[in-house]
């Protein structure tokens, strides 16, 4: 195996933070592809430029995604990375593993690939980093026969992901791991055979902490929330009082200013609480969310290409998330139907809603307008009215004439 001289990236083996270069070299000791990846990277560092080509279309039979094709422009210089495709393995909900499972994954990967991985990719997949086209079918056979399927890529439902939720967290408002699994299973076809106009991502967080960053990077963000009063344990409040300045750290930081603390009792005007989670997160022993639990569904977030980043918009303020998750599944299908009808190629759902207007979207999925969906109402007077709208205003006015009471 060729030994590359790598003075530049060697400098990234120094310092306390674990070194990816060390990892690459480790794999490179026994693996030709990984070894060439090291040399290839040193070249990038030397010339301050990447050498990867646009990914071609590669994959496994019957699937339209799950593998990212990657070729080097300088494959003759580094034959081990001439082909260097990644395989996206669909991670288990919450990134839980047994050592047995991981070892199996590693063994197969050592056999067919570079021995390098991303644990995990940003979307959530367990990314196997670098293999050749002719190994793909074998890789798929080995993994799938052992219960592992590919994740997704292309214009498809991307691998859903979620926070650890009920696995370890006291705040989860629904079973994030269960929902994530159920949705992944339900939509296998939509994941593996890209027929959408562009990618669609679903991420599930158990509460407003949003530990899977769903609000910023999921076309559909499912975020746990509750109804009902925050449960207070006043004794625990007292314990916190000895450790923290409750007024400065909690009461004054409550965004709705709906709390008070007189040194003895903590009070919450729950009607005005926006369930932001600050007080609960910072006094977890004393405060617990209310008892009626479910999620808020938001839609449309994405990265900045083409017209600037979007954060997901609230569309369903509250929905129960309970097995078999029929309501969520149906909602997703309705969303896709509308998207399918209205999108141009490479238009994410948020972009299409922006183009066509929230009304068209909400009507299609059967959700009424609610002030919870907006931060503030429109500013300009450029409104559309349907004939039905006008008819209903007129009917209301006729009714008012009869009753003598206005309904605004």
């Amino acid at each position: 195996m060729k030994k590359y001289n790598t003075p530049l990236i060697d400098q990234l083996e120094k310092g306390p933070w674990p070194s990816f270069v060390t990892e690459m070299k480790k794999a490179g000791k026994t693996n030709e592809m990984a070894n060439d990846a090291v040399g290839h990277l040193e070249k990038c560092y030397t010339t301050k430029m990447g050498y990867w080509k646009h990914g071609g279309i590669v994959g496994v039979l019957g699937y339209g995604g799950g593998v990212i094709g990657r070729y080097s422009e300088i494959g003759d210089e580094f034959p081990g990375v001439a082909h260097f495709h990644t395989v996206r393995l669909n991670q288990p909900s919450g990134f839980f593993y047994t050592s047995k499972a991981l070892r199996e994954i590693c063994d197969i990967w050592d056999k067919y690939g570079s021995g390098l991985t991303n644990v995990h990719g940003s979307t959530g997949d367990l990314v196997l980093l670098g293999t050749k086209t002719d190994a793909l079918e074998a890789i798929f056979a080995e993994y799938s026969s052992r219960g592992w399927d590919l994740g997704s890529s292309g214009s498809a439902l991307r691998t859903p992901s979620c926070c650890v939720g009920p696995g370890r967290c006291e705040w989860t408002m629904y079973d994030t791991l269960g929902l994530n699994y159920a949705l992944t299973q339900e939509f296998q076809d939509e994941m593996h055979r890209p027929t959408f106009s562009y990618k669609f991502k679903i991420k599930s967080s158990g509460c407003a902490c949003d530990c899977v960053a769903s609000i910023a990077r999921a076309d559909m963000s499912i975020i746990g929330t509750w109804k009902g009063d925050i449960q207070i344990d006043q004794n625990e409040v007292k314990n916190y009082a000895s450790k923290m300045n409750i007024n400065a750290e909690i009461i004054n930081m409550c965004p709705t200013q709906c709390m008070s603390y007189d040194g003895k009792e903590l009070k919450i005007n729950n009607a005005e609480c926006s369930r932001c989670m600050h007080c609960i997160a910072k006094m977890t022993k004393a405060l617990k969310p209310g008892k009626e639990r479910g999620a808020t569904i938001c839609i449309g977030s994405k990265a900045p290409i083409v017209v600037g980043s979007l954060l997901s918009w609230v569309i369903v303020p509250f929905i129960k998330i309970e097995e078999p998750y029929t309501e969520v599944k149906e909602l997703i299908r309705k969303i896709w139907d509308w998207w399918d009808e209205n999108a141009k190629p490479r238009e994410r759902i948020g972009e299409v809603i922006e183009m066509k207007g929230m009304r068209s979207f909400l009507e299609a999925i059967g959700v009424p307008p609610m002030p919870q969906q907006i931060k503030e109402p429109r500013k300009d007077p450029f409104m559309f009215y349907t004939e039905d709208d006008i008819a209903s205003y007129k009917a209301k006015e006729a009714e008012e004439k009869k009753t003598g009471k206005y309904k605004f």
Partner: protein
Amino acid sequence: MALPQRKTDIGPPHFEQFLPPVIKKNYGKWKYHEVLSHNTMVHVAESGDKLWTVRVASPRILSTDTIREHCDIAEKYCGGYLRYTTRNNAEFLVSDEKQLEPLKKDLASRGFKMGGIGYGITNVVHTQGWVHCHSAATDASGLVKAMMDELFEYFESKSLPNKVRLAVACCVNMCGAVHCSDIAVVAVHTKVPTVKHDLFKNMCELPTVIGSCPTRAISPDPANKSVKINPDKCMYCGNCFTVCPPISIKDPERDGVAIVVGGKINSLRSNPKFSKLVIPYISNEPPRWPKVVAAIKHIVEVYAANARKHERMGEWIERIGWERFFSLTGIDFTFQSIDDFTFMRDTMRTASTFKW
């Protein structure tokens, strides 16, 4: 009779000749003021001089007779000096305290209404309406009269948490600072315009008409040598009608008004804010638009009952949240309130945090 010699580009007369002596003397040297009542305030100069102002309601459409009556009063009590405000009230300026009560008595006896100072409701900024504008979807002056009759106590005596600035615009051109008012009424057309194709080619420029449409609803209609309007894209702004007379948009049964709330102009405490749409449509009901008036009064009362002192309408709403505004006022939330125009991105809610 021969006309006098015209002059051009002389500009307005210099204001100095219109300033009462007390102002000339203390120009730019005022120390503080005190609001004495809803109709009177006094400004005290560093010199110790005082200037009392009595504010008088105006319908803004004034006959020369009434202006002359203003003049009579000014001559009697104010040395002939007076001014009007940026919101079209008249102000009588008194430098001799002894004149103050007689002035007010005289004003009252002549039927002039005094008020509009401090934390209440002053005159309504408004526009031409049916009185003078071709674009009007309602009458502005009539609406103002009906509103202010109902809200009169807030002009004359009753206080609110802060000023409530009202405005009326008779079409979406919104002549006035309507778009940043605590409560404003804006008249709307609600039907797709029609085009008199035979007149089009002589009276309108095709690119101008097409360019006038904010939603690109207008496209050429070569067969008619005219344009056609896509009804799915038109939101009845009337801009095409403004640039092209053969386009017509008025419809007596469909023209109506919308109500926007929560705007402000000044920067005290919080930034200037646009008003936001809360009631998308009320039918035109001249001569007194009872539902519009009732809606405004209702909103003012809910504000009065709930806002903190010094909080403007929009500040109060932002503190409690728009969802709470809708629940407190009982106003129906409609699709029209969801922005689908230029600000959509910044107005949708992007967090699971809101109130039930």
